[in-house]
């Protein structure tokens, strides 16, 4: 959704909140200035022309706030209320169960594998797409976006079709005693699939905006390819990169549908945290289930806080609004 950037460039120049530096190809806008401008627009515009009568304003705010409270805040509160419903002792005991510990370990392991691989290949993909011209670029971008729009269940299914007992490579794998499905490699593959777009997608708009001038300058001054990447490109994209890694990690740890299809639910072995939440919930072990769920909810909240901070940093460049 590149509407934002396009609008920003096409709209007639409103108050000069953005300083455009053509040489660097950067749009710099300070968060503070932006906020001040927003406020100025809300206040300074002739007051009766651009707003609604008081009662209507009140109704709209009330509707928005109560809808968000019922549908978003309450479910979150329920998670913590249930987790602590039998006291903090029961909560900690539930988290210390061997099953819970092995699920936490597996989740961390899978997230580490998929985030690091997607980090490397996300940067390479974004680099290839933004700094070079080649045929089939649009197709490549569509391919990268695909996991966003495919049902997680289908993401898991495709790996079952490849590696399952009836799958294309199933018999060969069995003959050679290699376990992919119902084991860590399968879980990691499915997770890599669903988290593939995050890093590349956060970097593409940023790198597009920055162009290739700085890299060309570095190369013409005698820097090698690697030097150029680590000294010029990487510092330019570091906030965007962190942003992508953050979202990628959150999804990797929380993925349920795709992982559930390929994991086989072997207790203590192939259960990630979201899968354990499901199993315990279906066994009516609500405190234990919500205790694990509360860890995942904390992860989500921390992710959101860090994301807000990173977005402010990115405002110095451009904010990826895609997610």
């Amino acid at each position: 959704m590149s509407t934002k950037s396009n609008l920003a460039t096409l709209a007639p120049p409103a108050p000069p909140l953005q300083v455009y530096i053509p040489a660097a190809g950067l749009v710099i806008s300070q968060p503070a200035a932006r906020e001040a401008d927003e406020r100025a627009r809300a206040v300074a515009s002739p007051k009766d022309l651009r707003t609604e009568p008081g009662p209507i304003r009140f109704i709209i705010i009330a509707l928005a706030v109560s809808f968000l409270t019922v549908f978003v805040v309450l479910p979150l509160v329920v998670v913590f209320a249930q987790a602590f419903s039998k006291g903090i002792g029961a909560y900690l005991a539930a988290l210390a169960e061997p099953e819970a510990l092995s699920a936490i370990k597996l989740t961390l392991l899978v997230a580490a594998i998929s985030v690091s691989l997607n980090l490397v290949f996300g940067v390479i993909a974004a680099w290839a797409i933004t700094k070079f011209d080649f045929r089939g670029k649009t197709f490549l971008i569509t391919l990268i976006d695909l996991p966003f729009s495919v049902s997680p269940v289908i993401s898991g299914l495709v790996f079952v079709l490849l590696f399952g007992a009836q799958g294309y490579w199933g018999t060969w794998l069995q003959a050679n005693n290699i376990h992919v499905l119902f084991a860590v490699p399968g879980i990691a593959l499915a997770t890599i699939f669903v988290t593939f777009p995050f890093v590349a997608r956060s970097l593409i708009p940023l790198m597009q905006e920055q162009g290739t001038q700085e890299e060309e300058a570095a190369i013409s001054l005698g820097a090698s390819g690697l030097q150029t990447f680590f000294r010029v490109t990487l510092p330019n994209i570091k906030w965007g990169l962190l942003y992508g890694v953050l979202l990628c990690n959150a999804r990797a740890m929380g993925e349920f549908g795709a992982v559930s299809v390929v994991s086989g639910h072997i207790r203590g072995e192939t259960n990630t945290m979201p899968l354990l939440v499901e199993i315990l919930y279906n066994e009516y072990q609500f405190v234990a289930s919500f205790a694990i769920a509360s860890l995942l909810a904390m992860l989500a909240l921390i992710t959101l806080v860090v994301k807000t901070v990173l977005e402010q940093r990115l405002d110095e460049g451009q904010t990826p609004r895609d997610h």
Partner: protein
Amino acid sequence: MGLTLTWLSVIILIPLAGLFLKTLELSPAQFWEILTSRRTLNALRISFGLSFAAACVNLVMGTIIVWALVRYRFPGRRLFDAIVDIPFALPTAVAGVALTQLFAQKGWLGAPLAELGIKVAFTPIGIFIAMVFIGIPFVVRTVQPVLIDLDPEIEEAAASLGANRWHTVFRVILPSLIPALLTGFALAFARAVGEYGSVIFIAGNLPNVSEIAPLLIVIRLSEFRYADATAIAVIMLLASFLIIFAVNRLQRWAQTRLPAH
């Protein structure tokens, strides 16, 4: 470059190709039979029908939320702005158990609703609620930047030319938000159709009544009826391709009509 393509092929292209190859093993008659079996048709009807209804609610409520967040100042505005992203960030399984607990017969919201004679959890209404939950951010986040960047002069012009506020909003502002609104609607719809984790807990999962298509895929897989699972998956995949395509067209439309202002 070559590295990117190789990696993409291994992770995305080959698995997807496998899916289509598997479908080709079915004769058209078999394929048709799977898709038109009563259980499959009902699952698809439930998934697409309820997703459409949920996306409609998201469209209306999303517009109201985005209007409040962008145009008004009220205590806690920034907090609520951040809250909009929670359905994105919360793992789906967590959302699923939380919503089920909330709307179950003894839950905080389920109990009062049960007294009114409305049963939410383990019925299609529950599926609908879960789909509304996961769709909220899409409309809000696609419309928000457009509404922020909307030129204030257009509104002022409309007002000073004698349009009342009602006219200005519905004839001037909303039309320029339409591409963004439709994009948000399509994204929310696509997400709801494919959603699994947050729906299956609250759904009840009764075949033909409250069984969504992604769940039917999982059930067929666990019965080792790979062909059935694949056929349903291909149809859903085609549907999401169509939606991506529509969204891309919408984006292009939005860009071409902009300079006209």
